[in-house]
Each structure stands twice: as C-alpha cells, then as structure tokens.
C-alpha cells in the first residue's frame, strides 16, 4: 500500500505549476468580471517583485517568527499512536500559532503586500471565523481598515470569533444571502471589491479564487510544510511516510503538501467534509463528489447541479462548508499525487473528543476530519512508519457548537 505505483512515478515535476496565467494543468485561471483584472494584475506584479525581494522575505519571516511564534512544533502524539496501534503519529501544531490556526501565515504575507501596494483597507470572507480573526489581527497590527464578510449561519455558530474580530477593530458584515455560509460570504466580499478595488485589497483566505491567489496563498502557507520537512528529518532522520490534512478550500493542506510534492515516496491524503451523507446538499466533498466547473474566479472541481448552479453544501465544520476547492488540489487529484477522501460529521465529532481525551489537545472541527482519517490509516501502517497530521487549528472556537451537538 505504501509503494507509489509506476504510473505515479512517471509524472513530470508537480511543483512547477502554475504557469504565468495561473493554470495548474487544466485548472485555475482567471474567471472574474473585467473590473477586477487591473487589481489582480497589480497584485501579481507586486507579489512577483516581493518574492524576489530579500527585504520582503525578511519582513515576512520576522513577523512569522516574532508575532506568529513560528516555527510551530512537530509533536509526537504518543497516546494517539498507541491507541491507533500502527504508525508513529506526529502533529504539526498550527493550532499553537498566534490566533490559533494556520490562517495567520497567509494574512501576514498579504497584509505586507497591501502595504507595498499603498492600499489602506482590507476585506476578507470567513467561514469558521479563523481567517476573519487572522485578517482582523493583521488589520490591527498594520493599521488597515478591516471589513470581514461572514454568513449569518456562521456568525451564529462561531460567535466567539465574531467577538474577537470586533475587539481587534474589524467590522463584521453579516451575509444573509444563500445558505448564509462561506460561499455567500465570498460572493459579498467579491461584490465589495468590485466597487472598492482602487483602495482595497481582498485577502482571500484559501488557495482558491482567481490567479494569483491560489499560488500566492499556497506559497505563504508553505512555511508549514518546509518546517515539517526539516523537523521530521531532525527527529527521525527521514521524511514521513504519509501526511494527512483536511481540505475545505485547501490552504492548510496545500501548505503542508507542497514542499513534499516532488518526494514521491511521501503519501498524501486530503480529507473533505462528508457531512450527513452522500446525497448532493448533505456534504462538502468537492473533490470526491464534484466535477470540474467554474466558481469564484477559477476552474476547479465544484459541487454544482447539471445546470451549473452551485449546490448547497453541509458540514458540521464551518471552515469546510464550501462547494469549491483550490485548483491545485484538482490538479493533484487528477495526477494521482494526492488521494482525497471524506469523513462524516459524526466521525469528526468522535475524533474531536478522542484527541481531547488522549492528547489534551482540542483540535478545530476542520482538523478533526484529518484526525478521523488518520485513525483509519494509522492502524494499517507499521510502528516504524511515520504519519504526520496537520493540526491546522485549535478547537476552542468550536466548543459551544460541539456541546450543542453532543448534548442533543
């Protein structure tokens, strides 16, 4: 099971995407109204300059180290390893970052770019509120006016994060269209940007959206995988056998996978939200159940009906409750490099409790999906093998919602 097959090993280097137009194989690109093109081109040019500017890189690393607290730990989860009875399990502790999730990495990078572009206002969409909190945080840190769009259903589910954003000076704009979740928040943020594009930068929180966002967010999040690679070599003298991460839009997964993508011996598994069942509308398993289509600016797998209308989605986890996915994940899926599967609401809730009891760690409900899959995978591995889980965020924000669900 752990030997890559011949077809996979003959693939070209996967790390070389996207091309100059933001294409990951057939996926990605730029499908937005012409109004936004000038800003996207400006962002692309500014990002290209910044990437090659040592001063920018130093600034970025400074804030990751001194403000976020990086590198995050690679922690040997001894009791989970024993319980699952197979692989040696390591956790990449993104939950220990300042603000409690991986989202801050990307926000630091994009806030620095906002300053370089001379813009004074940032906007963002948020589902679980983690990206909203991270955006509000950099808004305060860099003195940028901040508006965060959030679906009304998520405002209810994630009231703690709403309060945190407000404390840091952000305005939280409740969105009442559609199912009032992440997709609808993204629509509203895009509409805001259509009219504010001269003065405002839109900090997209995932590896989704039009070019250059999927590439840029992946690059900013790749600090996760670069550290994990080095830490694993230091602790174990070798690379892990498998890495597991949850996938909504896919930024924490892209961040940990990308630095290993050309290491074909490392198996990678992306875990989507299986929700309440396999019928369209009951889950958010875009790569497992969707088809290629266009949503929010790029071509990727998407959950749509046969007329191209975006499907309703459901997940217990607000951060995974999204009918699209980043285009690079679609590319990785088709190439066979990454395997994608899904975990139900109930399995994620069970994993949430198990990790809390055995390790004294409350993972975010998003990350709990990765833990639930890891439990299944670990038992089939040997004690000499290494399984790495991206613990992408902390679960404090979910406690109220989990209490409501397990007590009903």
């Amino acid at each position: 099971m752990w030997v890559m097959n011949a077809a996979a090993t003959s693939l070209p280097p996967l790390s070389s995407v996207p091309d100059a137009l933001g294409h990951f194989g057939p996926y990605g690109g730029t499908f937005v109204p012409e109004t936004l093109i000038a800003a996207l081109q400006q962002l692309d040019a500014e990002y290209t300059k910044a990437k090659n500017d040592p001063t920018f890189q130093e600034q970025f690393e400074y804030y990751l180290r001194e403000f976020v607290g990086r590198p995050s730990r690679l922690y040997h989860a001894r009791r989970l390893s024993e319980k699952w009875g197979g692989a040696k399990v390591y956790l990449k502790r993104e939950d220990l970052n300042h603000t409690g999730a991986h989202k801050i990495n990307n926000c630091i990078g994009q806030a620095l770019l906002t300053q370089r572009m001379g813009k004074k206002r940032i906007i963002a969409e948020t589902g679980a509120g983690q990206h909203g909190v991270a955006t509000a945080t950099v808004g305060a840190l860099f003195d940028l006016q901040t508006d965060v769009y959030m679906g009304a259903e998520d405002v209810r589910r994630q009231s703690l994060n709403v309060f945190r954003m407000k404390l840091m000076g952000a305005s939280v704009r409740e969105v009442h269209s559609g199912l009032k979740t992440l997709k609808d928040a993204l629509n509203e943020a895009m509409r805001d940007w259509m009219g504010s594009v001269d003065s405002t930068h839109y900090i997209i929180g995932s590896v989704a959206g039009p070019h250059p966002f999927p590439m840029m967010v992946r690059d900013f999040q790749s600090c996760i995988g670069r550290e994990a690679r080095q830490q694993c070599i230091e602790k174990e003298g070798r690379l892990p056998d498998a890495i597991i991460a949850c996938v909504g839009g896919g930024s924490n997964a892209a961040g940990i996978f990308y630095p290993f993508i050309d290491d074909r011996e490392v198996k990678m598994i992306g875990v989507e939200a299986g929700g309440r069942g396999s019928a369209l509308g009951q889950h958010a398993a875009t790569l497992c159940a969707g088809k290629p289509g266009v949503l929010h600016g790029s071509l990727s797998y998407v959950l749509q009906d046969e007329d191209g209308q975006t499907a309703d989605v459901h997940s217990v986890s607000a951060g995974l409750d999204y009918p699209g996915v980043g285009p690079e994940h679609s590319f990785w899926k088709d190439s066979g490099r990454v395997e994608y599967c899904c975990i139900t609401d109930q399995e994620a809730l069970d994993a949430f409790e198990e990790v809390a009891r055995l390790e004294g760690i409350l993972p975010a409900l998003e990350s709990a999906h990765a833990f639930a899959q890891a439990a299944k995978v670990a038992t089939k591995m040997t004690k000499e093998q290494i399984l790495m889980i991206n613990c992408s965020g902390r679960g404090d924000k979910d406690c109220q919602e989990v209490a409501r669900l397990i007590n009903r």
Partner: protein
Amino acid sequence: MFAQLRSKKQIAFMPFVPAGYPDLETTGKLLPALESAGASIIEVGIPFSDPIADGPVIQEAFTRALEKKLKLAEVFATVKKVRSSVSIPLVAMVSVSVAFRYGIERFAATLKESGFDGLILPDLPPPEAASISAHIRAAGLDTILLVAPTTSKDRRAEIARLSSGFIYYLSVAGITGERNQLPVELADGVKSMKSLTDRPVCVGFGVSTPQHLKQLAGVADGAIVGSAVVRRMKEKAHDGADAIVAAVSTYCRDLLSLVR
C-alpha cells in the same frame, strides 16, 4: 442594426430581463412587449446562484427564479416559443459557470437554436476569453465582452479584437444597480474606447433615468438598463404577468422620452 440607429442618430436601448422571474410566462410576454416599448436589443439574463457582479435587485430576482427550480431547458424553450413574435436581436447574459457546465460549444449551439443572437459572459475576461469566444462565434453568435473603467488601453484593444456585436462598457467599477448620477469621466472613457474600435460601444451598470439616456446619446451607441427594469418587475411581482408587462412598458417609454 446599430448602423440604422446611428444614421438616425439614435442611441440603442437595451433592457435586461431576468429569465423566469417571477415566472416564465412573464418572460414570454415581456420580450415582444419590450420591442413595442422601444427596445433595440433585449438582454435576457439567465439566473445563476452566485452572481458576483450583481447588486441586490438582480440577485434577488435570480434567487427567486432558482427557488422555483427554473431549469435552463425551460429558458431555451420559452425564448424559442416567442422568438417569431420578436424581430429585434436577443442576447443572453450568463455566468461562464453555467455555460461551462453545459459545455461551451453545446451551450452556444443551443442558444443559437433557441433564437439568440449573442452571448455576454460577464465573468470571462481575456486571456481565458480567447479560446471560448472562438467557440461562441463558431456557433454563429456574437461574443460580447466587458470593458471596465479600470481596463488598461492594451486590454481594451484585445477585448475589442475578441468581441463581436458590441462592446459592453461598464459605467463604474462596481456591481449592477441604479445610481443617481453617471460618473463625469464616463464620456471620456467611452470616447477613448471608440477610438480603439469600430464596434458599437454600449454602456451599462447604473443607467436608469431618461436624463442618463440623454446624457449617453451622442456618446455611446447604446444604453443597457437592468436593475431599474427588474425593480419595476419586482413591484408588480404578485400581480401577474400582464401587470408586470404594463409597468415595464410604461417605464421604458418614459425612459426613452428624451431621446426618441
């Protein structure tokens, strides 16, 4: 058609109607009525679940239509049924998301077969537009692309090259919706666009009053009016198709009062 209006020194008037809102009967009755009320071209909006370029009025119309389980096939059938009673061009406006899922070539062919003359894909800019617009043209439809106030000169030329029919010039950087005043710099923007192309340039987003049309006449080749029409439909949404048709027709005649 634009040549004829140009020779009469008249601005083309292009109302927008959301298909299937509040029902398909209304759509079927509105198309011939809009021609009678002075429309030069009709833009038929095909509802999409996530219209990021649209303001609240058009969003709501799309949402209501989709709540009633409107299917693409029904939109095509409705237009096809009434096409013989409408002599002016019909252009469809639809998100590339919908066209892509249907299959671009198949979508274009089906539009043509239903009696459409052109297609506006508001979220399909170059370079992605290059290959897709070739498919649309191959089906015998005009490809209408958008130019924004923020569009660079090089891109304006590229968009003109990929377009046929007319160029859809956005009056503002923003979403659809009525605005009290059109931006002062709009006339210069349209002029600079027209210096780059012989294709007709039509202005949309925010256009909603007789004064706006008068202001655009002599500057642009056409005026596109969306949210203001849809708002009048909404006001009569529960009074039946005939009441909606009457209200919209009255509004259109009023809108044209200073330019016809």
